[in-house]
């Protein structure tokens, strides 16, 4: 009896699963994953902090005060102050802007360049595929951060150049992933049917193939944002990203390193902020991967 009830409930769930649209089903599965939900809440919190920083931050992030140099956390300055008497909490809140912007824009560049090239490579094949694949191999052969540092060094130190450098460096991952996905999808019946109906190639690629490979690309984009945030912080740490006095978590860590023995709070908070945001994007990425995986049904 109990088995029959469980089997019936299971069958009902499968039927309900089949009736839902793929997007709604993925969203429902994503919301069932506690880690992913926690990650989304934290990311939303940091986006709000970045957007409303002027209203939320307790002090001006670049206002210096010689009487407040390297003061430990207190009721007035929850995260303490830095070597120029600036409020660390205000700088962490404003620093979210550089990190989130770098994450989104650099992955936007990588996605915007990598996905069309991957589509072209995977769908056209032949010489173009060979050429794009070899260039992709060459770029992937250069370690991510070393190539980003080299690019940022040659472009010149600034946040926008750091974002371009990270975007270019992350592009081959999207080319390779898109190409691989296109290769497996282009032999499917529905693509054959679209071809038989006389659709032009660009239409098949954009309207029949791209929507079907989007889930894998979305997962990669989410995980790439996490990597891009670490890369921006690394470049800013080295002085190749956001330039002082504008706050960024990476550059805050760079100056904190010099005062580690007498002001460790200067290093604790910006590092913790990077860690929490990166963990959140990784949790959402892992959750999306599970939610979009047909095998997990």
């Amino acid at each position, binding site marked *: 009896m109990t088995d029959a009830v469980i089997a019936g409930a299971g069958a009902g769930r499968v039927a309900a699963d089949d009736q839902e649209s793929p997007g709604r089903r993925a969203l429902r599965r994503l919301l069932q994953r506690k880690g992913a939900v926690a990650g989304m809440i934290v990311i939303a919190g940091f986006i709000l902090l970045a957007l409303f920083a002027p209203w939320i931050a307790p002090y001006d992030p670049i206002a210096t005060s010689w009487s407040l140099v390297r003061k430990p956390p207190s009721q007035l300055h929850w995260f303490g102050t830095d070597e120029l008497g600036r409020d660390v909490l205000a700088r962490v809140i404003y620093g979210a802007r550089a990190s989130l912007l770098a994450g989104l824009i650099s992955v936007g560049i990588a996605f915007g360049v990598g996905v069309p090239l991957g589509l072209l490579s995977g769908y056209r094949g032949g010489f173009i595929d060979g050429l794009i694949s*070899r260039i992709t191999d060459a770029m992937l052969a250069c370690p991510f951060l070393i190539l980003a540092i*080299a690019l940022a060094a*040659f472009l010149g130190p600034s946040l926008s150049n750091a974002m371009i450098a990270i975007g270019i460096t992350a592009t081959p991952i999207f080319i390779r992933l898109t190409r691989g996905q296109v290769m497996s999808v282009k032999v499917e019946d529905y693509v054959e049917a679209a071809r038989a109906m006389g659709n032009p190639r660009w239409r098949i690629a954009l309207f029949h193939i791209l929507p079907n490979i989007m889930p894998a690309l979305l997962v990669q984009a989410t995980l790439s944002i996490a990597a891009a945030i670490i890369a921006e912080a690394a470049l800013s740490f080295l002085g190749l990203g956001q330039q002082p006095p504008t706050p960024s978590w990476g550059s805050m860590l760079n100056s904190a*390193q010099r005062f580690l023995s007498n002001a460790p709070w200067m290093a604790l908070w910006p*590092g913790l902020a990077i*860690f929490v945001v990166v*963990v959140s994007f990784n949790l959402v990425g892992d959750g999306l991967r599970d939610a979009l995986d047909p095998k997990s049904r």
Partner: protein
Amino acid sequence: MLSFLAKRLVQLIPTLFFVSVLIFSLQQLLPGDPALVMAGEERDPAVIAQIREQYRLDRPLPVQYLYWMKGVLSGDFGESLRIKVPVRELIGQKLPVTIQLASMAIVIAFLIGIPAGIVSAVKKGTAWDYAANLFALWGISTPNFWLGIMLIFLFSIELGWLPASGYVPLSVNWRASLAATIMPAFVLGNAIAGVLMRHTRSAMLQVLESDYVRTARAKGLMERSVILKHAMRNALTPIITLGALELGTLLSGAVLTEQIFSIPGFGKLIVDAVFNRDYAVVQGVVLVTATAYILLNLIADIAYILANPRLRA
């Protein structure tokens, strides 16, 4: 096997060619006249003319590339603009330091990541599994430069157990060398341990459900023997080759780790070169790194085939 090797070697040629074009093209990103940018603060026309002559900047790009490539193929990566030392010599001095650091990091990563992955798979769904997964998430998400700074604060400043910076070669004093490199090696190995743990867990889970493991259990073998002799041996083959592919992560991580711990290795060389606008050094280091990465990929592929009898046939 031989035909596979030949095919992979042939594939290397265009990849290496594009890598060299990519790295050579970096110079073209310099805003304005490259000779002026390379000269930096130096505005002496004689120096600028010498740079233009040295890098053949007045010649067409393909000609510049051919001259650069000719030098690279004969082991001449140019000369450091700042300290007037051949780039090859600089790389030769710094590479052993980074190799020591990277080797220690890989050992640490394997020692943590593989046991954690095995325990996580064997004890799936238990507190052990959750703890191992949390550890992997921590490893993958922690910025290594922050971890390095925090470890210096704890072990050097607060406890005074380990030196905060510096490097002693193994050949001079192995104890001092290990003390100076253990923290940076842990920082580097931490991220890779997280990746290895995830791969080991998924490989072990797959193997534990296979027929031969079920057969081994049905024969009445002890669980320890089933896991260590039957499951682990097969699951770890791809993981060990995967370790070679983590070289890119290691070298990227070394850039920041060496900077934080003031270790005079490959990573510090590239950062110093970037700040000194020593572009020949930047190009040389990136080229050597990329070539090493490509060759290690090849070795990993070959090792994978050698370790897998079905692929060998």
